[in-house]
């Protein structure tokens, strides 16, 4: 599963190691002030554009509010965004002014961060093929996360795209969705995170211990959510990445639901499973992992009915127990068989809830509407004391 995607991050590391990064970094270093000024200027333009957009949206909302009172909350949100963007714009402007004074310290910082990034890439590349280390939370996974954060951190200082350009770096990889050749940092980041995310997802699917499984899914979903967000910004295979995220999210929800089964919250667990099914349903037939999504959707459906099943079984259990205490003869023996079978079945699969919890658990049961069969419908009380023969008229 994810055979090609999960290897991409090593191909990316290899591409970085092979390219002339020193040259790229050197070129950037030489023109540091100029390039940084350009970059800040570009950011300022972006902020200005964002503020114009937000202003337009705010005025639109003010008109809409007269028709629809509920838009008030959206307006508040837009206004809040506007103020924060404005203050960020001011900060950027200030940064542009103070840039010449800070060049030296920024350069030094860039130097150390870049070194750390390159070392991180080297260390990560060494882990290729070492699955046991890679799936270790404090080893491989931590290393992947470190490289990712380092990329983002360095990109905050400088424009990595410029370095890629100077180093003539082109990343050619094969994802599960086909071959990719990218020269842009953000697209590379998307591929890197897709790779890490699918890797984590694969670990989660193969893991037996539930708490670890959920941990893997949590990390995978976070990773793939970020990658799909950036893919949307870059218009880079967004549909594919978004669905990939849906798979991870669906798996995570199933995992969380299963954890609820362990704590005997069957009803809530069923809700989780059904949500997971909804999430997974969007992954359509042309996605390379559609079959996985379909499988997990089936797991979600099955788990949802399983969870409800336990609830109904418990209800039977409580009632049969009561019957067995009061009844005698045939009914008592039926009751005791039922009690034992139910207890055995639930215990084997989910663990049996403590006696004092059962009543609370049953509180969330759902039932279809009661129905009186036609054959059992009898007329309401009629007739009168003087003549009861009315009751015997058919």
């Amino acid at each position, binding site marked *: 599963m994810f055979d090609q995607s999960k290897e991409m991050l090593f191909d990316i590391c290899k591409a970085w190691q092979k390219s002339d990064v020193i040259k790229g970094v050197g070129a950037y270093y030489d023109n540091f002030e100029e390039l940084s000024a350009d970059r800040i200027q570009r950011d300022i333009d972006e902020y200005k554009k964002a503020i114009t957009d937000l202003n337009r949206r705010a005025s639109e909302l003010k008109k809409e509010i007269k028709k629809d009172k509920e838009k008030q909350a959206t307006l508040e949100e837009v206004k809040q965004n506007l103020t924060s963007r404005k203050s960020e714009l001011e900060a950027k402007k200030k940064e542009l002014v103070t840039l010449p004074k800070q060049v030296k310290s920024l350069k030094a910082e860039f130097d150390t961060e870049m070194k750390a990034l390159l070392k991180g890439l080297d260390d990560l590349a060494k882990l290729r093929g070492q699955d046991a280390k890679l799936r270790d*939370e*404090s080893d491989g996974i931590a290393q992947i996360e470190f490289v990712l954060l380092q990329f983002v951190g360095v990109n905050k200082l400088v424009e990595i795209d410029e370095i890629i350009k100077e180093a003539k770096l082109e990343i050619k990889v094969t994802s599960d969705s086909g071959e990719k050749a990218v020269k842009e940092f953000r697209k590379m980041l998307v591929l890197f995170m897709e790779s890490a995310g699918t890797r984590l997802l694969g670990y989660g699917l193969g893991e*037996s*211990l*539930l*708490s*670890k499984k959920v941990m893997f899914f949590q990390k995978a979903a976070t990773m793939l959510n970020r990658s799909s967000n950036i893919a949307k910004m870059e218009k880079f295979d967004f549909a594919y990445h978004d669905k990939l995220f849906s798979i991870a999210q669906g798996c995570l929800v199933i995992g969380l639901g*299963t954890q609820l*089964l*362990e704590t005997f919250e069957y*009803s*809530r667990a*069923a*809700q989780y499973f*059904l949500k997971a099914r909804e999430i997974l349903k969007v992954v359509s037939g042309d996605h390379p992992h559609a079959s996985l999504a379909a499988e997990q959707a089936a797991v979600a*459906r099955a788990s*949802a*009915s399983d969870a*409800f099943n336990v609830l109904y079984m418990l*209800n039977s259990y*409580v*009632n049969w*127990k*009561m019957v067995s*205490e*009061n009844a005698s003869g045939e009914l008592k023996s039926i009751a005791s068989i039922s009690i*034992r079978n139910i*207890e*055995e079945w639930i*215990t*084997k*699969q*989910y*663990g*049996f809830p*403590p*006696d*004092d919890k059962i*009543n*609370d658990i*049953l*509180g*969330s*049961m*759902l*039932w*279809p*509407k*009661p129905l009186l069969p036609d054959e059992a419908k009898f007329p309401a009380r009629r007739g009168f004391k003087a003549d009861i023969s009315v009751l015997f008229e058919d």
Partner: protein
Amino acid sequence: MTNMAKGKRKSTAKKASSPPDESEPVPEAAGVENEQETSTPTDQDYEPEWAMYDAELERHVEESDADTEQELSQDLGVQTSVTEKELASDKVPRFFPVRLGFLSFMFLAFFTISVLILNIASIIGLVTNGDIFHQVLTIIQTPMERVPVLLQIFNFIVPFSNIQALNPNADVQALYISAGFVLTFMTLSLLSTKHRVTHFLFEGSAIKRFFAQLGTFFLLFILYIQALKLYVDFFPDTNDYGIAADFLAIGATAWILFQGYALLTAARRNGTRVEGALVKQGRLAYAFAIILPVFVIVFILLLTWGYFVFLGLLTLIHISAPSWPVVIEVILGAMLVFCLLPTFIVAATRSSRRRQKVYDNLVIQLTNFFMFPYLLFNITIYYILPKTQSSGTSTSTGLLSQIFLYADLVVTIVMLLMALRSASARTGYRFGPLNKHSFILFIYASLAGQFGIRYLQSRPSPLPSILGSSTSNNIFLDGQYWVVDAVVVALMLFYVLAFGSRKFGLYFRVRDQVSRQDHQRIDFIHEYLLEEYARRNGMFLVAEMYDALATLMKVDTFKAMQLVEKMRVAYSDIRIEGVKKRYIVLVEDKKKDTKEA
């Protein structure tokens, strides 16, 4: 209690009156999309099915509250009263093996005559020739000679008093009386597996029991003696005394097999105990378990070397047999195979299961370690003890034989006490299909055979070479030690061959019988799972444990499952994680994981 119950009642009342919660599953939650919303109202829309029994339910809750308050732990208070009753009815009185009334008396009398009197008398030189049984019978016979009727009865009952009168050298009463004891006790033992017989023999007033036992015992005893006599009358040519000797040998072999089995079990139990202590010690203990086979092999080789030195010393006093060193070499070879084969199997096991196998191997090696001296001891006894029909032994051999005879007697008695103590503590004197009464009677029968043979071997005038014609009799009468070694070696070979199987560890290890009380069982499950966790060095499926726990605690699988659930509530250091595939996980490990992260 009432407060608690009230609290519960309040909460249910509140629940029933509260409006349907938004967070409750919507109708679609039932898993059928196109279901109409109106057809699936929530539970709160109308009385739930079980609420019909509301009053009963609350009463039930109150009752169970009352129960749980009596218990130390709230979560363990279900259905303990039943097991308590079982516990009460199962108590075995102290010194039970000698409290079977008249039957115990008869056995002790036999023991006194054939073992104590003979040995004491021969030490102080009272008996130089003749037969203690014969002398005892003569003492009983003397006052009867005046009453002809009594004498006739006596002569009818006592075996071969007529032959005795004709030929004083053919003193074979000991053989026939011993065989009669073996057969009688064996029959009583088999009969006692039926409840009706134990009810007849061991229940009711003391007088009734006494007469029932006396009557049954003598009825069977006389019947068997007469049958043996008849046998000789009908088949005079076969082998005059052979058939009685056969029964004696059967009893003695049963005893020696039981002794061998008890010792093997004890060795396995000790192995299990040592392993249980080691398994929780971590890495160093694991390393020890890996290299233990080397130590055991060195121990076996050194002991064998010492034994050959001992054999060399024996030749100085003219005790030797050409087959002796050969047998020792065969046993040595077998033991080396038992040490090496499992070790090779461990080396060839997949790494994921190797750790568990290393600990299985540890138990096997410790068993080898404990059993080897016993095998050597048996062989020594076999070669040194006088043979039943041999008469021409040198004085020095005779003395040494006598010493070994005492040593064997001491070993027998020590083993008997050990086996009985253990049987009492662990199973309440139950052994396979035998209940407590039939088990003790079985022991009586076996010991009667053993003491009977010892008696024949050690009395000053050896048995005339009546058995010379039959080799099978020789093997069983004198060679039980050799037979028991063969059986023990065969059993160990079986264990070693079964070593490769998955469930080997469960069946090879011997654990103390877990008491019937649920609290103790829960503690046991906790201990067992911790050990299993250390042995596998990681999590494992709880479903794999149900059968093992059920076997160990002698309960059904369902009960084992219930107890595991209770254990889960009672102990917080073990978690059961997962659904459908439920794993046993140590909480400590999880803490370690998060710390590292």
